[in-house]
């Protein structure tokens, strides 16, 4: 890069938006993004993540709250004066303009002369390894190439914030990983504060420095990928990110952050409690399949094998517990991991206390 612009921070301060129909799109969202960070907005469709992106870009004026980029409240600025770069899900390249003109479009809008423009476009196209494609039209490029053009076009304006709207959804799986690495590399090079909107948890966890999980317009949790995965704060986060077995139980005893729960499936379990619970509260216990193991002793709870699923690198067994609930347990497939037959009685227990999480009902 010729010059790395000062990475700007982004603050969403109590953002609330209601559509004209009255439905609440996002409610009281607070996000504090440091300069240069990659943040993923993760949630199922309809959770408000795209609305949030459009609010930051200025396409939607939020009902309440402020958007602060760097030190400036940008709420009064129209989209064309926010210097927010966007890569759209369908890339939205201008079909009638050449690749080079697409990349130079933002500079042309800023009154940069033609020679400088094409030089800069060339530099950015070289950066995304499409230096030879400047004269082509967008439709002559593959999906992955179009995406790199879209990224180059967004970066050409030296945006203070880069927004990526489901950037990899339209790519096939093999290409997706390549592009994720590529985007991360380019983001590091440019040092631009970046927000990725996605419904794909793997994408969010692998690309982002921090992940904001949204559900029904609410911010469920904002933290690093390991915090999100290992210390989910809500039942939604626990079940939406990764997979989780949900077991019903009753709190038997509490002790500074950890609780002992009696499971309806039988047996007792020590679990982490992100929200305070009291003895004899009904709770839901979440246990990730990879945090469970078959045990020979009397710990954990009993059940019998329902089904064995060999999924390549892992083996998943479905276990029917005594109360009828279905529990999945996944193991790394080392040489000779046996597939257990249906009907075999087994006992399973968490690998360590505190890997389970309880949430009040």
């Amino acid at each position: 890069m010729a010059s790395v612009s000062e990475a700007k921070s982004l603050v969403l301060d109590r953002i609330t938006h209601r559509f004209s129909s009255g439905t609440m799109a996002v409610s009281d969202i607070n996000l504090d993004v440091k300069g240069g960070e990659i943040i993923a907005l993760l949630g199922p469709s309809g959770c408000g993540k795209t609305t949030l992106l459009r609010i930051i870009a200025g396409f939607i004026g939020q009902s309440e709250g402020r958007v602060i980029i760097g030190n400036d409240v940008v709420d009064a600025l129209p989209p064309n004066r926010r210097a927010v770069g966007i890569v759209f899900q369908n890339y939205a390249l201008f079909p009638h303009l050449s690749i080079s003109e697409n990349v130079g479009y933002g500079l042309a809008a800023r009154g940069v002369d033609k020679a400088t423009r094409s030089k800069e476009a060339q530099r950015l196209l070289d950066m995304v390894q499409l230096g030879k494609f400047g004269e082509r039209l967008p439709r002559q490029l593959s999906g992955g190439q179009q995406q790199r053009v879209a990224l180059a076009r967004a970066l050409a304006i030296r945006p203070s914030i880069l927004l990526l709207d489901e950037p990899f959804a339209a790519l096939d799986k093999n290409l997706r990983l390549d592009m994720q690495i590529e985007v991360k590399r380019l983001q590091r090079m440019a040092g631009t504060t970046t927000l990725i909107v996605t419904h794909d948890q793997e994408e969010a966890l692998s690309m982002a420095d921090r992940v904001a999980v949204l559900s029904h317009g609410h911010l469920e949790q904002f933290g690093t990928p390991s915090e999100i995965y290992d210390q989910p704060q809500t039942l939604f986060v626990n079940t939406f990110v990764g997979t989780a077995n949900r077991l019903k139980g009753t709190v038997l005893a509490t002790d500074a952050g950890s609780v002992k729960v009696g499971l309806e499936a039988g047996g007792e379990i020590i679990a982490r409690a992100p929200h305070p619970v009291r003895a004899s509260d009904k709770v839901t216990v979440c246990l990730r399949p990879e945090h469970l193991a078959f045990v020979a002793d009397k710990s954990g709870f009993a059940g019998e094998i329902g089904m064995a699923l060999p999924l390549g690198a892992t083996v998943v067994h479905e276990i029917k517990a005594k109360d009828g609930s279905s529990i999945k347990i996944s193991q790394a497939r080392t040489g000779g991991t046996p597939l257990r037959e249906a009907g075999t009685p087994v006992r399973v227990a968490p690998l360590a206390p505190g890997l389970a999480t309880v949430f009040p009902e």
Partner: protein
Amino acid sequence: MKSAATARMTAPGDVTSFSLGLALPLGLVFAIFFVLPLAQLLYLSLHNDTAATVWGLGQYIKFLTDPFSLAVLGSTLLLGAEVTLACLVLGYPIAWLYQRSGSRLQTLIIMIVLLPLLTSVVVRTFAWIVILGRQGIINSVLQSMGLIGTPLRMIYTQGGLIAALAQVQMPLMVLPLITAIGRIDPNLSDASASLGAGSWRTFFKVMLPLSMPGIIAGCTLTYAAAITAFITQSLVGGGQMLFMPMYLYQQASTLQNWPFAAAISIIFLFAVLAIVALFSMLGRRARGYGDAR
């Protein structure tokens, strides 16, 4: 109209003999009622005398060397251009509004746009006479408000005629435009804005070039319809302004000079074809997005 615009945008798929067979009934109708009379017209036009006995190019030479005839052709082609321009300037915002509206407003707009098509040309034209006449609505309103002393002369003027024709032909412009603008990815204008372009820049650099197929289709239809609109031209234009359809009618019906009328028809036909060809050439260029900068 819509399908014509769309069909040209999609690649011409494999036309099998079976699908060509589907066009046969219409093809026969065309051959009998269109191609044959046209051939007869051509045959007639190639005679030098009114009785159509002496072969020759006399009628064509007469037209092309007669300043009066050429002036009629010129003013007809000019009228078409003016009406087309008026329709484009007034119709584009309507089509734009349509694509930016909710479904209820869209229905209303389509109703209003299509309304002229649901009334007879004669009725519509007389409505314009009522509006534009010396004692018409506009004049009486302006006079009663004291804005003008004597009535404005609007009917039987070029301006009045353009207004009437533009209203009558408006659907032919608006419908292809609605289709073309609807095909443009709404993200493109957002992308343009996020890259720093103001609304005018977005319009001229993105929306206008990309709606070119609709503009071309609309202009072709409007132009062809405007220059051949015999009834509106005659009634709103009156006797002072002479255009090709009326000129043709006079020669054939009043003066019984069939060979000359036939020659006028053929010349007019080729003039219109030339204009349409020009439009479709522009259309091909627009679709290639070659030079749309």
